[in-house]
């Protein structure tokens, strides 16, 4: 119990100190409103339906861009990771594009798409694509060649070799890419929404700034932190679910000897 609570001790102390500093007047609420004020702003915006709406919009943009970028990155990575011919044809080009910071595309993207949804989704997709591509490609290229050779000796066809050896071998690296991409996803969205948007959490913060509503600005920042943490949690969960064999997650022998998982059901 105490072990589970230990990581939260420091944030709690900081929160209390922050509240006290604001209450005692050491910290102007214009600079930094107290946590309670931020909380109140959150409640009020939630009640008015404004906050859920902006959150929903941001989430939809993030998800759409992430799905598009990940799908493309995965497909490209699988292609160049498993076929020498595709690697020769594509890898150099992708690596060249990768060196352009995707946020540098913002002016161009606004010219192309205006400030509509497409612009944000496009930017997130581009940002997500490269880390997923790189780690997928790298994952396939670093699968233990001894295992591939074993697979060939043990009569695995091309599809079986992919499904049984290559894909699971590359998966840990793919998931590292996905986790990194989730970080890029929020970062891209924050920047895109604060520069050119009429809705979303980033817009909420920029709009509040104009009205000197520091509490709402701080609330937006905290929301981003929360969403980021949530995405990271999803990524960890995914790793745990998809890599049960991995030394980092493997269960002790006693717990792994589950009678329901007997060989009969596997074969």
């Amino acid at each position, binding site marked *: 119990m105490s072990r589970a609570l230990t990581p939260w001790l420091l944030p709690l102390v900081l929160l209390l100190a922050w509240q006290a500093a604001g209450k005692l007047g050491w910290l102007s609420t214009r600079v930094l409103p107290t946590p309670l004020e931020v909380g109140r702003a959150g409640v009020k915006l939630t009640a008015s339906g404004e906050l859920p709406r902006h959150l929903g919009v941001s989430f939809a943009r993030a998800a759409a861009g992430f799905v598009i970028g990940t799908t493309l990155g995965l497909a490209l990575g699988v292609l160049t990771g498993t076929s020498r011919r595709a690697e020769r044809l594509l890898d150099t080009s992708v690596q060249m594009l990768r060196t352009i910071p995707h946020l540098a595309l913002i002016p161009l993207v606004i010219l192309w798409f205006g400030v509509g949804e497409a612009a944000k989704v496009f930017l997130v997709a581009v940002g997500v694509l490269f880390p997923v591509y790189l780690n997928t490609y790298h994952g396939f290229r670093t699968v233990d060649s*001894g*295992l591939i*050779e*074993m*697979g*060939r*000796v*043990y*009569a*695995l066809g091309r599809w*079986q070799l992919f499904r*049984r*050896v290559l894909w*699971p*071998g590359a*998966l840990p690296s793919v998931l590292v890419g996905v986790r990194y991409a989730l970080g890029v996803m929020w970062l891209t969205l924050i920047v895109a929404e604060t520069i050119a948007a009429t809705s979303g959490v980033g817009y909420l913060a920029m709009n509040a700034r104009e009205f000197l509503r520091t509490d709402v600005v701080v609330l937006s920042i905290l929301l981003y932190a929360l969403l980021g943490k949530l995405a990271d949690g999803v990524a960890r969960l995914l790793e745990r679910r998809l*890599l*049960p*064999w*991995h*030394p980092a997650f*493997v269960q002790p*022998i006693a717990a*792994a*000897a*589950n009678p329901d*998982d*007997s*060989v*009969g059901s*596997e*074969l």
Partner: protein
Amino acid sequence: MSFAAGGVSVEAVGVRRAFGPHVVLDRLNLRVAAGEFVAIVGRSGSGKSTLLRLLAGLDQPTAGEVRIDGRPLAGLSPRTRVLFQDGRLLPWLRVGENVALGLDDRRRENAARLLERVGLATRAADYPGVLSGGQRQRVALARALAAEPGFLLFDEPLGSLDALTRVEMQRLVEELWRERPFTGVLITHDVAEAVTLADRVLLLEGGGIRAEWPVPFPRPRATGSPDFARLVEGVLGRVLGRPAQMT
């Protein structure tokens, strides 16, 4: 147990394998009868691994040919399996799935039976990562035999095991070979192991087979007898390039 077909004969005829200017094997001839168990010993760098890869069909000779049951081998043979030095189990598949890897429907049931035969039926649902080195090699052995191979190549499969586990594994390999009609070729630098398991021991040296010893001891083999020790000593002396000495 019923098996569709027995062991196959394995031949190497005038085999040469060169990597650029570096000739590893040259005019190598070798004949292993169906159902025979032969060990090939040699010092490191003698070309043992190259020969194994050629016999397995993982590599092609520069000249000459390998024949399985009289037919020239081109690429992998569906009836050949290799027991690799490091086991090469797939860490993401459970033990039971590893043993069933690549089996057709007819042989699927072999997996559970062989896992039981090597004494690991209770570990079918575990990942290989939680097994000991000896257990992993037993799983690899079960996987190799589940496919009912006609030809099984052993690539120093016991090299990394501790002494006791090794003896256990040697007994198990001998038992399983006597139960089933597969042709076995063991590649090793361990002379005692070669003499324990094989019907014949061949010496690979200078790119070819340079000496041959029949192993006349009845099976299952007792490795403690003076005759056994003398033969091991004799082969070892030849491998190391000094005249055999009696002890």
